[in-house]
């Protein structure tokens, strides 16, 4: 009990300190998952991809893309992510995917577009295999965008916060298809564009992004 409290207090302290750090100073991992559906309890992760970013540079050399070879039911999802049963043969076991994710996420600053959905799946996954992959900070480009739009007095329409819609707003190129890695890169680019729009990039602190 006491240990739990201490853990939480330490985490809170860590986070508080972290938020004061400049954005360009710390490495960031941008993650994207492809899923068979939207329900973390029933649906599964099809693939996961991530790319690292340092000092505002997205390093494609550090990118990774793992396909889950053990998906039970792809259902209708291939029309979105384009991964079919054949591709799954090139994949890795779920356990390996979970361990790789845990490794890259643990004590890292991670970024998603719509973190609630992706994190829900990841928590289920980690719980299943008892891995620990606790990020120090989770950023969400969708939330950043929502905050920005609302503060400028825009009314949010349906679909105005999808990854494509957000990128269009910043004049970023359109990427085709929903490949996990493409989306991870796309999210990273979006994050950079957002940071530039928020301003004072060289002094920008993490606290402006949450």
């Amino acid at each position, binding site marked *: 009990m006491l240990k739990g409290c201490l853990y939480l207090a330490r985490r809170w302290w860590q986070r508080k300190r972290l938020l004061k750090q400049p954005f360009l100073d710390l490495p960031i991992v941008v993650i994207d998952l492809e899923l068979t559906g939207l329900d973390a309890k029933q649906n599964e992760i099809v693939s996961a*991809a991530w790319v690292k970013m340092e000092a*505002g*540079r*997205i*390093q*494609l*050399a*550090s*990118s*990774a*893309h793992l396909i889950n070879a053990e998906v039970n039911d792809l259902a209708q999802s291939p029309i979105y992510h384009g991964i079919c049963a054949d591709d799954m043969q090139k994949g890795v076991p779920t356990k390996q995917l979970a361990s790789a994710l845990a490794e890259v996420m643990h004590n890292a600053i991670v970024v998603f577009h719509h973190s609630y959905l992706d994190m829900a799946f990841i928590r289920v996954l980690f719980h299943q295999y008892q891995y620990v992959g606790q990020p120090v900070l989770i950023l969400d480009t969708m939330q950043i965008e929502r905050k920005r739009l609302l503060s*400028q*007095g*825009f*009314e949010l*329409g349906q679909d*105005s916060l999808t990854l494509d819609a957000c990128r*269009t707003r*910043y*004049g*970023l*190129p359109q*990427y*085709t*298809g929903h*490949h996990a*890695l*493409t989306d991870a*890169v796309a999210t*990273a*680019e979006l994050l*950079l*564009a957002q*940071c*530039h729009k928020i*301003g*004072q*990039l*060289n002094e920008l602190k993490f606290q402006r992004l949450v």
Partner: protein
Amino acid sequence: MSCEIQDIVQFVGALPPFNQLPASASEYFTNHLEIIYLSTENQHDWLQSNKPQLYLVRSGHFDLVNGKGELITRLASGDYFGYPSLLTGDAIQNRLSVQSAGIVYVLSQVDFDYLRREYKAFEQYFVRAHANRLLSSHYKQTSDSWTERRIAELMTRTAVTLEPEASIRDAAKAMSEARVSSIMITQSDKLIGVITDRDLRNRVLAAEVSPEESVLSVMTHKPKYIFENNRVFSALHLMLKHNIHHLPVLDEDRKPLGMITSTDLLRQQKSDPVQLIGRLYKAESVVLLKRLAAEIPDLLKSFSNNIDDISLMGKLLSGLSDALTSRLIQLFQEEFGNAPCDFAWICFGSQAREEQTLHSDQDNGLVLPNTITPEQRDYFARMGQYVCDHLHDCGIVHCPGNIMASNPECRGSAAQWQHRFAKWITEPTPGAMLNCKIYFDIRFIDGCRELYSEMMTGLAKISRNDLFYAAMATDINANTVPIGLFNQFKLEKTRTSNRYLDLKKRGVVIINDIARLYALRAGIARSNTLERLEALSKHSLISKKDLFDLKDCWRFLTQLRLRTQINQEGLPGNCINPEDLSSLEKHQLKEAFYLVKQAQQACAFKFARGSL
């Protein structure tokens, strides 16, 4: 652990040199990229000498500027930069100026060198690109467009003037004392003539006129002039068009303020669309003219980024069209002999309003003397055909409504034109009103100005008809502003695209129409909407506040129209999706539409006794 990203591989693979290289080259390139977002915030962090890298633009627009601040090239999607120092190892001279922020791919020296070694074609490509850049005449352009500035800002000298009673000797003395090359002759503060160095040389010394004679005998009567608030661009245009070097500058009350000379302007000038106008006026053949005309779109695009007053774009394009037309008329006369009688070449519609865009078609006509013979008409038929066809080839396309000098209907004598106008005025059918909207915006382009003035005087007389104004006002009200009963936007929709607002048809056009109606009623012989509204402030037809509001709305809507050029949703031209606006802009837009609606209603009320 790395893995290529299909989108980037495809993008890179389609570009030279990778489109000539095996797929593995673009995959290697992609896998070793870093992606950055280049904006005004961090433009100085890149292109550093201590760490040369290859850059590839994925999105956004960037200007590459040399040490002197001159533009070397404009970079857009697919363009590389940073390679010279990678190749040569020299320090980097150039810097970046971000026009619109975007994604840039960065490749380190190590990886660049690897690709150089592995693929010969890769190395060749960049070596050649480097050489080309060195060789190409540098596209220099100052970023602040000086032609946009007002005459008053360039003109420093005080007016050197003389009374008309003065002798030529007095004039020469005054000029040498003030160390100027020209002098204005004024009578009770009104400009009546100009004498220049050249006049003293050509009209006095060479003609052996006595220096005791009055200046009246040698001065240029009714000289061209310009107002202090006009743009430098207009001054240049006038000078180039009439081949004059001195232009008196007057204030709004036509009181002389000073002189602006071609040297003053050339001192400012480096390279500009204005130079193109000059070259157009001097082009020696149709082929050359067409080659020059082909430069217009690119030139304008580069120019448009540096302009803050949008109304200038239309003026500039109209100026270019005027120059093309004038030159073509001259070339025709050189080829087929001089015109057998006076004529006036006029233009209508957007060119006359100086609101032309790159997509505008030609609307023009010829005014001929009333005494014209059938043989003479044949000559002008050929001229009309010649000029219109060549204008078409120069990028100003034929008018789908056939409002062109190649059409016999648009090639009438002053009396015939008047008759045409009279028919529309006395029988204002909806079709006639459509014509009036184009034909009542008239501007003289070339030929005999008296002929044009004669037609305009006649036109002013017959258009003084309340019933005609009423029909115009009713017609204006047939076009509704896209605001609903409860102050919400009324969006239009096509089969293929999203819901949108047509800013031109439902905003700018209505203001143009309103300005035209008031100008006709007040007898203002101008065609530009803002100038018409400006001139209306001297009449009591419409209050100053309303005029101010209308001008404001016009500017706001036109400014917003510019945005539509970068819209990515595939809407029709000049249209905007209001969801893309901030709530402040939405509010302003509604306010603007509301004001337009009110002006529309007031028109119906004042001129047509229309509905409340």
